[in-house]
């Protein structure tokens, strides 16, 4: 082998450099436009740091006597998440089968399902809560319905992708030996997806806990209601207790569900 007679002057070709420079300028330019229109410069954060530290100071020390008020609402939050996740899981089973293109061979039905799901997933959870509070009145029930709709959107999307990725040979074998649709799904599809299915259900439970925390802001039950109320009363020490309790609960539930999911998949 003779020595290469061409030594590249730079690690990257000129074209890549040009593209990168242009994208960089575009990113930065858009950033400047956004900063100016929203009047938010990161530098302001440092200018107002005195303001922020002063406020953070008012959050301390947490008012631990408020914790007796928090407990019932916290339990309500957890109950809402449990009920909503359970119902959402049950409802999403048939829908995820309908939204998987290897089970639902009807192209039309499949596309309609996909379209509906995409729309559901773009609606923010808190807007769903606003609508259901208006329909069913203030309380946990509206929050549960909002969480169910929200969770179905996520769960069906994740599940239908898993179903589309399964090994189709067992289901062909069962069909070839005369199994009907239900038998095919039960003996060929379910065993392949069950671990992921449980794992995703736990994941959705985690998301629901977080979501149900904020639903209270619009009157849909749960701990968010307390935050809203205390902020309006400028009772920052109670707010910080609530936030700390939420933080602890979210961390503990994430940890438990993470451990369970590790054991599953």
């Amino acid at each position: 082998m003779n020595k290469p007679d061409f030594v590249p002057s730079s690690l990257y070709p000129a074209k890549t450099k040009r593209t990168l420079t242009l994208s960089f300028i575009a990113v930065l330019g858009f950033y400047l436009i956004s900063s100016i229109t929203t009047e938010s410069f990161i530098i302001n954060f440092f200018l107002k740091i005195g303001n922020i530290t002063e406020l953070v100071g008012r959050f301390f020390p947490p008012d631990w006597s408020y914790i007796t008020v928090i407990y019932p609402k916290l339990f309500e939050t957890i109950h809402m998440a449990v009920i909503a996740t359970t119902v959402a899981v049950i409802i999403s089973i048939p829908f995820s089968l309908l939204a998987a293109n290897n089970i639902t061979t009807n192209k039309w039905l499949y596309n309609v399902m996909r379209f509906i799901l995409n729309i559901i997933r773009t609606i923010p959870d808190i807007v769903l809560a606003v609508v259901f509070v208006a329909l069913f009145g203030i309380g946990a029930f509206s929050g549960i319905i909002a969480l169910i709709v929200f969770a179905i959107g996520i769960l069906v999307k994740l599940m239908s992708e898993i179903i589309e990725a399964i090994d189709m040979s067992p289901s062909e074998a069962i069909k070839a030996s005369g199994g009907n649709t239900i038998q095919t799904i039960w003996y060929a599809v379910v065993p392949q997806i069950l671990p992921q299915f449980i794992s995703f259900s736990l994941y959705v439970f985690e998301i629901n806990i977080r979501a149900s925390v904020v639903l209270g802001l619009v009157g849909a039950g749960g701990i968010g209601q307390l935050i809203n109320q205390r902020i309006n009363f400028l009772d920052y020490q109670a707010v910080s207790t609530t936030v700390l309790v939420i933080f602890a609960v979210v961390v503990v539930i994430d940890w438990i569900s993470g451990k369970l999911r590790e054991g599953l998949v």
Partner: protein
Amino acid sequence: MSNRIPPKPKSPAKVVKRIIIAIAVIALYVWTITSVNIDWGKIFSQRTIDNFDRIIPKFFDPAFGETGEILIKMVETIFIAYTGSLAAAIIAIPLAFLCATNMVRNKFLNTIGMWILGAVRAFPEIILAIIFVAAVGPNPFAGVLAIAIGSTGMLGKLYSEVIEGIDMHIIEAMEASGANKLQILFYGIMPQVLPEFLSYAIYRFEIDVRASSVLGIVGAGGIGTLIHFAYSNRNWDEVGMILLVIIVTVTIIDQISSFIRRRLV
């Protein structure tokens, strides 16, 4: 037919674990069902039916007259999301290096980094927004800060996973040929991680557009402000129009972002 499949070996520890999990789940459900308080009488009442009659038709008759004002706020929402996620994409890089076990060979620092990111992720954006609204006033800047802090947690975790997955041979080769730390960073690490960093940052921008569209409900700017006014005044046709704009915008941004991400990786 005697050629049965032999039964799966079962370890007693596993059986005990399963029983414990089963009991815990049943206990959770019993606790939930016995203590959740839902006033069924109020939900299945004439008032709910009236609400349905009053509200649902309005959603299918959105207030197209407000389109101009809503679009302006939607653009502001996108700007908030953009400014916030760009800031997060940059703040997350040093934290990610701190967490990556192949970069910082110090278990203690890794754990601290993980704790910071985990702590940030435990707070829902809207709670951060409430705190920042109290700190810097009800303006888009509060939204930007909430998005920036909220996104850092997820981006930092994803980034650190990317860094841990890089090919260390290149870095060893560079070290062996005498490159200094900065050269290794620019020629050894950056080319490997940048495409995925960008891809995750764009993905997070997608999520942030959804998140920032509700921040206005607590006063942090963007289209949420309009949602808040519309539902407080029971203008359901306006809520319908806002939802329509959100759905269309989010869908378009999702399409663009998934197109760019496919090109990147």
